[in-house]
């Protein structure tokens, strides 16, 4: 393969021009998708982490089973099951609905474990101080524990969020027209890999600043521990 052939197959400006509108619409869908699943996962995670502070075995055991199941299942399998499996139980879900449910279950379980570790990293004396001034259990959690838990776990939370945004590409299997889905469409129409390369570049440009931020935070935490 000559260099020109190679360039034509992967970096064709002409193809890029043609595919640009469809790729942009895909990028918008990916951003919308991320804007839906990240808050949804965080919400699920806070819920699970708060439940984890309940000591009763009637909460503890089902919770552990829930988290284990949804951390063990591959997200792709989970998504296909929700989209293609639930209709057999009479539950029709749209592609967006399936992605929402699948990510809530999977991502929520991961965020939940991170936040639980964060909550446990806050010394008991913090809650005691808050309760001794008359704050209720919930107020102490909201004002004293959770802010510190989130701060202590910030690198892990950002890292997980990176994974979640990348994971939105699996929505292509339920034909949700996000970035990867559109790139594949463009590739199959043009018989050219340029749209895929363009999608990869778009993901990189989108996420690289977050990766840099994460590195800085991690280095700062390491320095703080010294």
């Amino acid at each position, binding site marked *: 393969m000559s260099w020109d052939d190679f360039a034509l197959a992967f970096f064709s400006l002409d193809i890029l021009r043609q595919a640009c509108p469809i790729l942009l619409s895909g990028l918008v869908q990916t951003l919308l998708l991320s804007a839906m699943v990240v808050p949804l996962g965080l919400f699920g995670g806070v819920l699970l982490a708060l439940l984890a502070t309940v000591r009763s075995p009637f909460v503890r055991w089902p919770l552990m089973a829930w988290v284990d199941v949804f951390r063990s299942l591959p997200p792709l399998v989970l998504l296909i099951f929700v989209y293609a499996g639930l209709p057999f139980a009479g539950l029709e879900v749209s592609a967006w609905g399936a992605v929402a449910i699948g990510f809530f279950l999977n991502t929520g379980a991961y965020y939940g474990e991170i936040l639980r570790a964060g909550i446990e990293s806050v*010394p008991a*004396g*913090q809650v*005691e*101080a*808050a*309760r*001794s*001034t*008359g*704050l*209720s259990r919930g*107020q102490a959690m909201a*004002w*004293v524990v959770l*802010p*510190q838990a989130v*701060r202590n776990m910030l690198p892990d939370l950002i890292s997980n969020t990176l994974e979640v945004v990348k994971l939105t590409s699996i929505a292509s299997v339920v034909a949700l027209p996000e970035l990867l889905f559109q790139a594949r469409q463009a590739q199959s129409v043009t018989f050219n890999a340029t749209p895929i390369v363009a999608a990869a570049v778009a993901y990189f440009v989108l996420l690289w600043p977050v990766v840099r931020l994460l590195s800085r935070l991690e280095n700062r935490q390491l320095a703080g521990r010294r």
Partner: protein
Amino acid sequence: MAAIVRAHGIHKHFGALHVLRGVDLEVAERELVFVIGPSGSGKSTLLRCLNRLEEPSGGRIEVDGIDMLDRRTDINRARQRIGMVFQSFNLYPHMTALGNVALALRQVLKLPRGEAEGRARAALERVGLADRAGHYPGQLSGGQQQRVAIARAVALEPRVMLFDEPTSALDPELVGGVLQAMRELRESGMTMVVVSHEMGFARAAADRVVFMDHGLVVEQGAPEAVFGAPREERTRAFIRQIDRH
């Protein structure tokens, strides 16, 4: 004088451990009671039972006329009347000194922001830290942190203050500032229960010294009496040990 704190027959078990074995403690209004004793004697646990940070296994506790162990008592309201200062300060590291003091004023007393911060500032002023209001705990010395913690408790205008070894975690040169803040609080008429090894402070400021050992009150009385002429052998042994340091 009317008793503000009435604790009777307090028992506390931690699993198989019987930490408090029927302790009685009454504290009169404006009284400063000093609780001393070897580590493991149950003095901190007793203090923590008074505001129910620790759930007593048995007994009765009344603070300012409120039955602390009654299920119907609103414990969060009751705790507003009982300030507590901890050995390790327990300031909220993500809030400034002002934020630390204002949190309960805003969330518990539901004061508007301006009023809460005004009261918080006044409380910081009382402990001599008005100029540190915007500092985070990490930017303050241990002694300053403990004074902020005192301000945090005092800002709620409690009827009684509990001090759980307030100077034990401090470098010696920082103890003075904290004791000074406590002395001023005392002079303002605050009722105080202090668990501490600061014998000098006890001699100078306490109305009564309570000596505890093995989960029981062994002996109590005026500081001159307990320190100068202890009746019980265990008290004598403990005071000899303390004085050696």
